[in-house]
């Protein structure tokens, strides 16, 4: 009886220690994650401004306003369009090309050269996004390197592609910067996925007389499908949160309207114009979009496990 009591108390003591170890983080997340998101929701139902301390409850007026009005030329609809174009225009090429690169890298015979390419592709990701945007601002200058490069590709000379001026080109420019910065990172994700496929399967395929092309479509891709889906959603989530490139380009003189992504609109509405209520409503909309995507990510990563 005495013994039993003792083990019982040791267990309780242990439990108390375990809980107290998690307590600092729990408190932290309560104050800096849960409280703000709840707060964001309640603020989005008010007309709170940065300057006045008073705010009134106005129900869903902010949301109705955002979906129907132009918000001084920078409407939510435009931001949705900008974010969506950017996301689709970036993540599809990124996933496709990084997958091709990863498959190609796996074919290299020397581990050294494989390592070198991985490292080199990854280098842009080491630069901060602001630095990346600064470099590309100069590359996209009318007399910059990228015009020369594009001219060589299209066999012209002296043609200005208006990278930072033309609406469509400006959007394409932000996509190029993002693509350049993160391609190496996604190559590594795919290489991790490819390395997990046991070589025995490939050997069996070769024995059965399959060529490399067939092996890729019939074996590699189906086995890699969960990784592809997962990486695509990750890439989409990341693209939805883009801010630095667009902000830096805008500050560098580019027009805001074509590249006014949601995060930038939140920043300008909430901080520059001080409309905290309206900005919170936008935040909640962004949160819901990302929540849906994250849900898909979890659903995919749970259900689609491949067994080799």
């Amino acid at each position, binding site marked *: 009886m005495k013994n039993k009591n003792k083990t019982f108390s040791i267990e309780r003591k242990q439990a108390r220690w375990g809980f107290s170890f998690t307590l600092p983080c729990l408190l932290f997340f309560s104050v800096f994650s*849960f409280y703000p998101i709840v707060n*964001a929701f309640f603020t989005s139902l008010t007309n709170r401004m940065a300057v006045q301390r008073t705010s009134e409850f106005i129900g869903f007026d902010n949301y109705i306003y955002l979906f129907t009005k132009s918000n001084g030329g920078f409407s939510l609809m435009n931001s949705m369009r900008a974010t969506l174009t950017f996301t689709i225009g970036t993540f599809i090429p990124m996933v496709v090309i990084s997958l091709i690169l990863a498959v190609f890298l796996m074919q290299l*015979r020397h581990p050294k050269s494989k390592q070198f390419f991985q490292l*080199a592709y990854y280098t842009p990701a080491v630069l901060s996004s602001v*630095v990346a945007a600064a470099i590309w601002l100069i590359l996209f200058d009318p007399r910059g390197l990228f015009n020369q490069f594009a001219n060589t590709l299209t066999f012209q000379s002296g043609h200005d592609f208006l990278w930072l001026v033309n609406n469509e080109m400006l959007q394409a420019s932000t996509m190029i910067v993002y693509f350049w910065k993160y391609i190496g990172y996604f190559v590594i994700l795919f290489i991790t996925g490819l390395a997990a496929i046991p070589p025995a399967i490939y050997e069996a395929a070769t024995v059965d007389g399959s060529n490399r092309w067939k092996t890729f479509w019939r074996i590699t891709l189906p086995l890699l499908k969960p990784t592809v889906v997962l990486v695509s959603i990750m890439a989409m989530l990341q693209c939805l*949160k883009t801010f630095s490139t667009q902000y830096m380009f805008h500050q560098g003189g580019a027009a805001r309207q074509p590249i006014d992504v949601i995060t930038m609109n939140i920043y300008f509405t909430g901080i520059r114009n001080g409309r905290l209520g309206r900005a919170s409503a936008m935040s909640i909309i962004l949160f819901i979009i990302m929540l849906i995507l994250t849900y898909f990510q979890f659903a995919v990563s749970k259900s689609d496990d491949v067994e080799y």
Partner: protein
Amino acid sequence: MNKFIGKHTVGEIIIWIFLILVLLFTLTPIIFMFTASFMDPRQILSMPYSWIPSTKFFTPVTLNDCTGTTIPRTFLTNFHKAIYGNNNNVIFLRNLLNSLIVAISCSVSTVLLGSLCGYGLAKFRFKGRTFVFMAIMATMMIPFEAIMIPLYMVTSSLKMIDSYRGLIIPFLVSAFGVFQMRQYLLTFPSEYLDASRVDGLGEFKIYWKIVLPNCTPVIATLGILSFRNQWDNLLWPLLVSQREKMKTIPLYITKFSEEKQTDEGALMAVALLASIPMFILFFTLSRYFLGGAAVYESRKG
């Protein structure tokens, strides 16, 4: 792929061409940054771009100290301009220091708090453990961009605007850090812990003396990750830092690029200087950049 040794197929040549083209695409802008930071702006925007800095293009630089004196240009003029700024204050160094302070404190605290919590979740049984874990995981779904406005209101009501506390405290620990530490520690042999308990070590001492020293790989990965996130952070300092001396490097670069007197060479010099800490980390610890962390890392954006 041993089976292809000795055969240079057409496919292989295509592979090499493709790999090298992408290599050129990724490295050209970086090489551009290096070379342009030594050049006169006239040379940077001359067509075609000459890759080697040359004295041929050098034009004297007008000093921005109201006297209008000009000095001859050297290869280091851009860096001088980068450090002294356009109005001859050395705020760049202060901003660099701020960035270092914020990034280092955040990575140290992420490692410490993350491992403490991860250890608690991985190696102790207590009521509500699953709930705590799920709650922390749930915060991963809340993007920073969606809570920055209320977070800004919280920080301003705590009087932390425009201070190191305001820059650091919201990033003390990340849910991803807790998750990674927990996953790593799940495989940590409990026998060690029990043996230490028998030896009479206190619970906190066990964490500090046994658990922490045995997590080096995950500590390195996590430390680098949060260092990098903070070094890269533009959005939060944009909200919190108001005085020049509280700004961080991304803000400095944005401001510097907006100024009229900034030329392309000086901008590239600033960009290069701001990248040096990351380059040092990358080339000394590249395996922690490329390693297993990659898969989870992206969840943070």
